[in-house]
Structures are given as structure tokens and as C-alpha cells.
């Protein structure tokens, strides 16, 4: 177990190194990154100062060392627009993103899991086909479009819900639906296939042979087992939600990380853009590590693998 975790940890570190290298090289790809990394309209002296601080006059590998060491210190540079460290800015927005992601997740699970179960126990029949159409729509109608159409209907036409900003639950409903929409479809598909697999298992057959009513076979024996992969996916998706929320947050002016990214792009505030990519990648690497470890604790077969 210890060895397994250590090996996973090693992989994650390697991923982080490669991640930083990727980001670093892409920024240098255009030749001179000075224009990206200095404020628009900076004086020649300012440019020279930035050049020196980032070590752009040094050889490439030394530049990378400077880059990595500042990352290790938690220094993602300062935002041109806000004039504050990107790191702080990121964490000040994170709670909003998390709120939205959790609400969207709750919504996607409430919609996705029951419909997935229904589709799996009625496989090939009406509810299964209805579920397929629902999933297809979820995967095909982009979230920002869902958001815009909802604003049109609920804010402009019915005037029930506020179209932007934060506040009470009413502010959260539409962005959470728009963001959770795609994931509801994904969770439905996962629940369905996971349930189908479990329903075909020998232990579900044995549960039927014991004389359990079908409702109990599904609720007790099948559902519990089918839930594990769905919840794993949900855990990974929670992190994904924070990172793909950029369009939804832009549509609803929700002040999370996605909105920050949009501002970064609009104001040509490159350190913000760079910081969010790095944090997004690091978060996903960390989640993958966590999922592997949690799986190893749950599944004895992985745990025993020495």
C-alpha cells in the first residue's frame, strides 16, 4: 500500500514538472514573452525591469528554474488589472466557484442518478430511450446556450430570477442548472452503464434467487455497487466544473474563477490567465492522485498489490 502510494506520488510529481514545462515552453513559443508579461502600455524602463525580474536575459534552462522556484513559493505573478498577486486573487474567487460547482453537482446527481437507474431497469424501452434523448441533448446543447436561453425565459420573459451576480439561492439556480446540465447527462450515462453491469452480475442473480423483491434487488444490492464508479466520476467532475465554468460564469457574471479567466483574457491580463491554467492543471493532477488513493483504500485488490 505504502509503495503504491509512493509510486502514485512520483507520477503526480512528474506530471506537475511536465505541466510547468509545458506552460513555460508555450509562453516562450512566440519568441519574446515580454509583451505578454508586461502591462499594455508599459514604458521601456518597465519592460526592462520585468525582463530582468523574470530572468529573460538568462539561458532558457535558467529561466525555467526561475519560473519553477517562483511557482514553488506560490508566486504566480501579479495581476496587471487588480495589481494584486494572482495567487491571492485565485483563492479569493475559489469559494464562489466551489459554491457554484457544488450546486451544479447536486443538481446533476439529482437528475442523473435516478434517470440512469430508470433507464437501466427499463433497458431498451420507453424510459431508456427518453433517457438517451436527454443525454444526447445534454451533450449537444452547450452550457452557455442553456444559460442564455434560461435568462431569456426566466429573467426577461417571466422575470422570476435575476440574470447575473451573486446573492441568495435565486442567483444560484440558473448558473447551477446551466453548468450541471452537461454533467447530468454524463452522470446519467455512467449510472446506466454501471447499473447494467451490476444488474448482470452473479450476486444480483443470487439476490433474486434468494427471493428478494425486485425493488430491493435494485435498491440494496445493485444500486450500492453501481454508485461507486458514479461517485468517483462525480468527484473528478467537481474539479472539472470549476475549470469549465468559464462560459457559464461569464454568461451570469458569476464572480468565480471562470469569470476571472474571462476578465484576464478581456483585459489582456496574462499573469491571471497563466495562473489559472497552472492551478487548473495542478488541481486535476491532485484529484487523480486522490482518486487513486481512495480507490486503493476501498478496493482490496489494489491495496494488496505490493
Amino acid at each position, binding site marked *: 500500500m505504502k509503495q503504491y502510494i509512493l509510486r502514485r506520488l512520483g507520477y503526480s510529481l512528474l506530471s506537475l514538472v511536465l505541466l510547468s514545462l509545458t506552460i513555460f515552453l508555450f509562453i516562450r513559443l512566440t519568441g519574446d514573452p515580454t509583451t505578454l508579461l508586461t502591462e499594455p502600455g508599459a514604458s521601456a524602463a518597465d519592460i526592462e525591469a520585468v525582463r530582468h525580474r523574470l530572468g529573460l536575459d538568462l539561458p532558457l534552462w535558467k529561466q525555467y528554474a526561475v519560473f519553477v522556484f517562483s511557482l514553488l513559493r506560490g508566486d504566480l505573478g501579479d495581476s496587471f488589472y487588480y495589481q494584486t498577486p494572482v495567487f491571492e486573487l485565485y483563492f479569493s474567487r475559489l469559494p464562489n466557484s466551489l459554491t457554484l460547482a457544488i450546486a451544479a453537482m447536486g443538481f446533476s446527481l439529482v437528475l442523473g442518478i435516478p434517470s440512469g437507474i430508470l433507464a437501466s431497469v427499463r*433497458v*431498451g424501452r420507453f424510459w431508456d430511450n427518453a433517457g438517451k434523448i436527454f443525454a444526447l441533448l445534454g451533450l449537444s446543447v452547450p452550457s452557455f446556450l442553456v444559460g442564455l436561453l434560461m435568462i431569456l425565459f426566466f429573467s426577461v420573459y417571466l422575470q422570476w430570477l435575476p440574470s447575473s451576480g451573486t446573492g441568495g439561492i435565486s442567483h444560484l439556480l440558473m448558473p447551477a442548472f446551466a453548468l450541471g446540465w452537461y454533467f447530468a447527462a454524463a452522470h446519467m450515462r455512467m449510472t446506466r452503464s454501471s447499473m447494467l453491469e451490476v444488474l448482470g*452480475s*452473479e*450476486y444480483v*442473480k*443470487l*439476490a*433474486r*434467487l*434468494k*427471493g*428478494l*423483491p*425486485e425493488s430491493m434487488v435494485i435498491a440494496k*444490492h445493485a444500486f*450500492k*455497487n453501481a454508485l461507486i464508479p458514479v461517485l468517483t466520476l462525480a468527484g473528478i467532475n467537481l474539479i472539472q466544473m470549476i475549470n469549465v465554468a468559464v462560459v457559464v460564469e461569464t454568461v451570469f457574471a458569476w464572480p468565480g474563477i471562470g469569470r476571472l479567466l474571462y476578465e484576464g483574457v478581456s483585459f489582456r491580463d496574462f499573469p491571471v490567465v497563466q495562473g489559472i491554467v497552472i492551478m487548473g492543471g495542478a488541481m486535476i493532477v491532485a484529484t487523480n492522485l486522490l482518486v487513486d488513493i481512495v480507490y486503493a483504500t476501498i478496493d*482490496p*485488490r489494489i491495496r494488496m498489490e505490493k
Partner: protein
Amino acid sequence: MAPLIELRNVSTHYVSQRGTRVVRAVEDVSFSLNAGQTLGIVGESGSGKSTLALTLLRVLPTAARIAGGQILLEGDDLVPKDEEEMRRIRGKKIAMILQDPMASLNPLFTIGDQVGEPIRLHEGASRKEAWRRAIDLLKAVRIPAAETRVRQYPHEMSGGMRQRIVGAIGISCEPRLLIADEPTTSLDLTIQAQYLKLLRDLQEEHKLGLIFITHNLGIVAKMCDLLVVMYAGRVVESGPVSRVFNTPYHPYTEALLQSIPRMSDTRERLTAIDGQPPDMSALPLGCAFAARCPKVFDRCRKEAPPEFSPEEGRIARCWLPIQAAGEAQP
């Protein structure tokens, strides 16, 4: 007195979603078994043995349906019963042990919960009472340290132990009939022998009817009173084990018997049956075994033989005994 279980012309068919293709997985099967007796059902994989077992309990995949016949449990037909009535029979009067002990236990529940589940379900026992009975059952199937084992999860058990636990679940409500589907295929030989002995002891103790589904005729010879040989969904031969072993009427049975290894055997190689089992969705017009039969003649290819009883208690589905009988009594 009515036999414990009697099947009369039972057929189970798989129908494709559009209803265009029908696979006659079990066709026109009849046999009967008394309490305390053991019946062996033998056949190649795909011959319909497992579907037949699931038919008895009416736990069939959605595509399958019972197309006809009667299943009499102590004289009471199960086919017209509704799901709720069937549910009260499953695990209570008829229990079944599935092939794969590794996969038959739910990884998320304790052994005690799973062994005690039918008791709580059918006898309304409390959780505590069910656990106490579960401990007794584990002892009955000779699992050491039963008191600690009930608290553990399936992955903490060896394969042999899980097989016994599945057996314990089978007998938990003292059923009248126990069906065991290839119960020993995944076990090594010593454990296999122990397990078979255990089943026999349980049978004697509880006066169980036992149905053994297997492709191992050696086990049939050791364990069973009656034998049913299936081929392509039909019973091709049945009767008391010793008589069938001595004088098989069907060339398929004969071939199967020749393929059992014997200690006294001096032959270097076993006789294997040439050819493949037929495609179940497109059975030939005549006898399904015709293509592989060493004694095939014209009539076999044109016309499927009916069930025929060449002597008291024996049945064969072959033209050979029918013709022989015809010659003896013109």
C-alpha cells in the same frame, strides 16, 4: 405421493427484441425427482442446462420466456404463479447455488448479512436472530471461526470458503430442492471432494432434493441417482445413473461416457466428440446431433426423433432404439 419436482414438456425460448429470431434454449423437457434423490443434468456448455435451472426458479433474462409446459413442485404448478408467489418460493422452497462463488457474493455486505438475508426475508427474523442463525449455518458448512467470519467481507475469504458460504445461503431456509450449477468448476480437487461430501451430508440431513448441473460425468457417477443428458436444449437421454452408464441408448451419451477418464483405463487418449454443437438459432430439420453422430443414417437428417421410452424409467430421443424396438415387435 407426488414427486418433489416434476417437469412436463417445459420449453424456454429467447426471443430477439424485434421478435424475429427465436432461440429454443430449452425445448420439451420432462423429468421428475423425489425428495432425498439427486439428479444430474449433463451437457456441453450452451446445451440449455443453466437456462433450465433458471426456468425452474423463473429467474430468466428479459429476453427469455417460458413457452410452454408445467413445472410441478410437490404437485403445484409454478408456471402460472405471479411474481410475488414465485418470490416466496425462491430461496425458501427451491434454492440455487450459482457457478461462480467469487462473483456470487456482494462485495459490499458482510457474510452475516448475506447468509442471514433469506432468513430475514422468508421467516421475518430480526437482524440479530438472522446473524445467530448465520453463524450456525457457517458452522454447518464447516467454516472455522464462524463467529468472526460473519463480520467479515467476501474479499477476506478464500475461494473454497466462499463456495461454502454460497452453499450456506442455499440451505439457509431449509429448502426442499437445491439446484447446484457447476458447483465445483472453480475449485481445486481436494476442496472439490470436500465440498461434494458436504453437499451430500446436507442432503441426507435435510432430505433435500438435489439437482446437479455439470459437465463432469465423474461427479454424476459419484453423486447422483438419476441422470438427464441434454443436447441443443432437449433431453436426449434420461434414467437411473447406473442403468444409463451400463447401456446408453443415445450415441451422444455413449460418446460422453467414453470421454470419462478411468483409473483402469489403458487408452492413451480420450475419445473426444468431433465437431461443434449446432447453432441454437438455426437448428437442423432432423436430429440436432446428426451432424456429429457416428451412427447417423438417413432418417436422422430428415426427421427429429420423438421422445421414446425403450424400458421402464428410461427415455431416449434417438431413432436407433425406436427402430430396434420396432424390429423386436413388428
